[in-house]
């Protein structure tokens, strides 16, 4: 008899010894996984808010791994029904192990966090903090920064998991998510990308939808479902509007939607010229626009005179020598050929005013500014966004020959070097050996850095060294960016007893079609200034050229090809004059600096230059692709349950139309699951006929539909309860149309709610 084994579980499902009370669902443990996965996804989605702050996407992978580890350990531990605090401890331990194995090298066995790994992590976190404090967004994705982010996000994931599964208060997940979102929102100057909001919001909505259904009680049912529906619809509406806006104006809001082009956050400069660090090659921000400039020149915002050992140059005491600076630069000689330059700050915000070193007067800056005579810096106490202002420039012409005649004032704070490593002093002495005047000595040092033969290359980050001294590391590795070059050369100049400092500001920028210069955040720069007795502060830029930027010197140089390292002895007059003819009236000439650098720059700076060049595009395109991929993945994730349900329905309909034994069962299973999808699923205690009667009533089935349903029921009953005589061979009618009728009628009369459409109830297990 074929029916002998059909329902072996009937007997044990009904306990004869006691009253059949309401049945409890035993599927809570499996269901708990769903909210926590959405919590983890929401954390990951919130992490994308950091994408504008950190260059590239490489840092995302460890973050994703850490979040996944926390989530999986939570699930596993709860499946084992461990106590909540043990689960938390396990997750914490797993987080530590994950971070150790991902970021440190000194863990026990590479994975277990020991004291060595802890101190390594502490060091890394410290340098990550330094990097955060010093770099302009987007910051380079170093391992230190990666550890910092992964630690923070891992902690957030832990809290989120605890709130969902431990404290059963999924609504509170909004708080850590808000924290995750608020940090980049407060740091970043521009608008955060849209997906940084949409992804966590959608995941949060899904989380609420899921957990809302688990906690429904009869009274709160309506309110919860209303709230969930609102949240889901709101999230979808936001997603749709952002997608439409993004596709109409290009993905990403930053600088693309017209009215936001100037509303991006302002940019200030960090008052440090560090010996270690890294810059980013992210998307440049427009900082300043300069019109009326006749010759490209550097804009100086402030100068740094205080040397800190193993760190670099920083601010010394700033004194308001001229309070309420009225615009007239004290001690500046007004020349005949003065030009008036208009500087329009775009996203600049700082306490210091960008000013040309040769400026004689400033107007239009308003009140509240002070002037430090020695630092030649216009400053105020609070950062501000200055309005457009004009600067009168009276260029002074200083030639190398003139400077060669001058002397310098040794001693005092401007020649303080702290405790310099002896190698640095001896290196400076050997470079300048044979020079007879201060200028030649400084020039020799300049050429030491700028001559490609010496192997100095531009790099956005300083590699780690092993000397224990940042300065020696830089001079050994010969890789860095403007801050290291400027700081190193300035301190070496000082070691010779020549007063020097570091100037910080912007290079000349990129000439636009209308003749103005656009200065972006990528144009931030640092250089060396040397104080000569008569000419005052003269600018030396030891940084190798990048993208044709930089390389300006504050004097008309000797155009000698022999001005190499250590060979900067007196250059011949003929060549100097020939250079003078090339740029006779140029004081801040780019041309003058080019001859001995230009040819070799491409190969020397290939990698940083390329990366810098591809920066704006390269930083943008992957983000777009990731956004698209993320959205696709999200949509797929959302659609996956529905697609799975549809596939199952197709399969069953095909079976139901198969005219074979099993058609009735398949047809009924589909009807039953459809009822469950619509929230009116049959209980275990309801017979098929009772369910069918209820279905016909609630779905307002027409007479034909009822007949079709009756056929389905009798076929199914015959398969389940019939004798062997009505066996597999007996042909069955086509049941698929009947099932289809029921599905259509239910869709019409009992519309499903939104959460049920996204995640069909029949896939959630038995209620």
């Amino acid at each position, binding site marked *: *008899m074929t029916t002998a084994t059909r329902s072996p579980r009937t007997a044990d499902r*009904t306990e004869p010894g006691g009253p*059949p009370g309401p049945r409890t669902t035993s599927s809570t443990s499996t269901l708990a996984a769903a909210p926590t996965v959405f919590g983890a996804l929401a954390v990951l989605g919130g992490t994308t808010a950091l994408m504008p702050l950190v260059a590239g996407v490489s840092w995302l992978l460890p973050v994703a791994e850490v979040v996944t580890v926390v989530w999986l350990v939570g699930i596993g531990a709860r499946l084992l029904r461990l106590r909540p605090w043990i689960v938390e401890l396990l997750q914490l331990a797993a987080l530590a192990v994950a971070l150790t194995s991902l970021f440190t090298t000194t863990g026990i066995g590479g994975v277990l966090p020991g004291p060595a790994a802890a101190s390594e992590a502490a060091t890394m976190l410290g340098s990550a903090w330094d990097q955060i404090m010093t770099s302009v967004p987007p910051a380079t994705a170093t391992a230190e920064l990666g550890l910092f982010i992964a630690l923070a996000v891992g902690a957030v994931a832990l809290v989120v998991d605890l709130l969902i599964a431990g404290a059963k208060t999924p609504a509170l997940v909004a708080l850590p998510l808000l924290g995750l979102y608020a940090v980049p929102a407060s740091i970043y100057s521009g608008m955060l990308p849209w997906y940084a909001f949409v992804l966590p919001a959608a995941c949060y909505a899904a989380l609420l939808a899921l957990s809302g259904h688990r906690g429904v009680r009869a009274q709160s049912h309506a309110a919860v479902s209303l709230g969930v529906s609102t949240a889901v619809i709101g999230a979808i509406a936001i997603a749709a509007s952002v997608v439409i806006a993004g596709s109409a104006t290009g993905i990403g809001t930053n600088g693309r939607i017209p009215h936001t082009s100037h509303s991006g956050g302002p940019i200030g400069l960090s008052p440090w010229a560090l010996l270690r660090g890294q810059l980013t090659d992210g998307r440049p921000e427009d900082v300043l626009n300069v019109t009326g400039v006749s010759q490209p020149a550097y804009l100086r915002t402030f100068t740094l005179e205080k040397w800190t050992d193993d760190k670099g140059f920083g601010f010394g005491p700033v004194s308001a020598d001229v309070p309420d600076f009225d615009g007239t630069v004290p001690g500046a000689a007004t020349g005949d050929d003065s030009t008036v330059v208009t500087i329009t700050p775009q996203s600049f915000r700082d306490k210091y005013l960008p000013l040309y070193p040769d400026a004689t007067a400033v107007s239009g800056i308003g009140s509240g500014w002070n002037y430090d005579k020695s630092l030649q810096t216009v400053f105020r106490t609070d950062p501000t966004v200055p309005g457009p202002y004009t600067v009168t420039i009276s260029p002074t012409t200083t030639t190398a020959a003139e400077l060669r005649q001058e002397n310098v004032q040794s001693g005092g704070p401007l020649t303080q070097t702290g405790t310099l490593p002896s190698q640095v002093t001896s290196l400076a002495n050997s470079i300048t050996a044979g020079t007879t005047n201060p200028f030649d000595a400084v020039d020799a040092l300049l050429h030491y850095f700028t001559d490609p033969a010496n192997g100095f290359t531009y790099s956005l980050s300083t590699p780690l060294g092993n000397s224990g001294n940042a300065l020696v590391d830089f001079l050994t590795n010969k890789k860095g960016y403007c801050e290291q070059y400027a700081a190193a050369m300035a301190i070496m100049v000082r070691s010779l007893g020549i007063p020097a400092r570091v100037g910080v500001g912007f290079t000349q920028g990129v000439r636009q079609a209308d003749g103005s210069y656009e200065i972006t955040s990528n144009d931030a720069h640092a250089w060396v200034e040397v104080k000569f007795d008569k000419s005052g502060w003269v600018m030396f830029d030891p940084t190798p050229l990048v993208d044709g930027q930089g390389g300006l010197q504050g004097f008309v140089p000797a155009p000698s090809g022999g001005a190499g390292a250590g060979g900067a002895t007196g250059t011949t007059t003929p060549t100097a004059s020939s250079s003078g003819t090339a740029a006779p009236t140029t004081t801040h000439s780019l041309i003058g600096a080019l001859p001995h650098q230009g040819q070799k720059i491409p190969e020397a700076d290939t990698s940083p230059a390329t990366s810098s060049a591809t920066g704006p595009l390269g930083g943008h395109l992957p983000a777009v692709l990731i956004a698209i991929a993320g959205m696709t993945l999200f949509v797929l994730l959302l659609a996956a349950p529905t697609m799975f349900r549809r596939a199952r329905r197709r399969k069953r309909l095909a079976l139901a139309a198969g005219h074979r034994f099993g058609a009735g069962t398949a047809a*009924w299973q589909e009807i039953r699951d459809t009822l469950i999808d619509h929230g009116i699923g049959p209980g275990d205690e309801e*017979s*098929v006929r009772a369910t069918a009667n209820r279905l016909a009533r609630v779905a307002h089935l027409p007479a034909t539909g009822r007949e079709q349903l009756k056929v389905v029921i009798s076929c199914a009953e015959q398969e*389940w*309860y*019939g004798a062997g005589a009505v066996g597999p061979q007996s042909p069955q009618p086509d049941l698929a149309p009947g099932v289809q009728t029921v599905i259509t009628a239910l869709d019409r009369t009992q519309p499903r709610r939104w959460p049920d459409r996204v995640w069909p109830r029949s896939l959630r297990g038995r209620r």
Partner: protein
Amino acid sequence: MFAAPPWASTRQRATKVRHPAAARRWQTDRYRTHAGTGWKGRLVAQDVTVGEIPTPLTAEPMSAEAVAHHASRIGDAVAQVILGKSDVIRLSLVALLAEGHLLIEDVPGTGKTSLAKALARCVSGSVSRVQFTPDLMPSDVTGVSVYDRNTAEFTFHPGPVFANILVADEINRASPKTQSALLEAMEERQVTVDGNTLPLARPFLVLATQNPVEMEGTYPLPEAQRDRFFARTAIGYPDPANEVAMLADRETVDPLHEISAIVDQAMVADMIDAVNHIHIAPALRQYIVAIVGATRGMPQVRLGCSPRAALHLARAAKAAAALAGRNYVVPDDIQHFAVPVLAHRLLLTVEAHAAHRSAASVISEIIAHTRVPLGHGG
């Protein structure tokens, strides 16, 4: 209620078995012979060769569709007499086909006798009626042997139990001794008189009534005897529309006369055999056991259902399936007949009585909480 036809009322008087002479008169008037037997009213046990427990049939049993067809015709015919009581008619048909006996707990005049008579006419059967009184003796039910002076022999005069349908009115008024005589006949389907065992007719259906309002002078049926009844039901008052329709023509037309025999008794026997061959899936057998078992564990129940109850429920489900033209039982058959088949067997606790719980509600609750077996993994 139902206006009894004149001939019925006279017969009612006539069949009040008071003494052997009356019984004999009734028997010679009314008793019909068992179809297919040579028995003519005088019978000794040794001669009996027919009407035994059904022997396995070599031929194919009647199909469920045929059973349903005949049964629906019978039901339609009876429905002309008992208006608007299709459930009771169906239950009595089920009891007939399942070879059970009905206990009708109802006030007088709701049509119990009419139901029995209509049913008997449809199946070409005989009807007898016994009014149970405290002084009724067992022999008044089973029959008595009377000495015939002409032949100098004892002749057995069969009692009213030798009919196809026996209406046992107010069965709880008779003494337990008489009750048990009837109940033995119901269960064994045979009567033993003076050492001779006589089989009863087939079909044999007892429609016993209890009067719930007149409780004085009654001997309540012990639970062991109630258990022998296949099902308990109430006919109940007709609804006003049907009562009006009844008033319209009952004075001139007796609907019982309109009924003609639809099937003969042999065919009824075939139908019973067909019911016995209805398939009941193993899962459904477990379902029945689960339901019956649950009654034994309910806190409101002092005495649960016996295994005989499970047997009766299975038979009822089979008969119901046959009435629906199905050759297999579905869970709804079981659910539908669980209350009438099981409820009268339960003894509720004092607390349950105090809480106004009825046995029917307890059974309904069990049905509502017992998992229905669906097919493969369903």
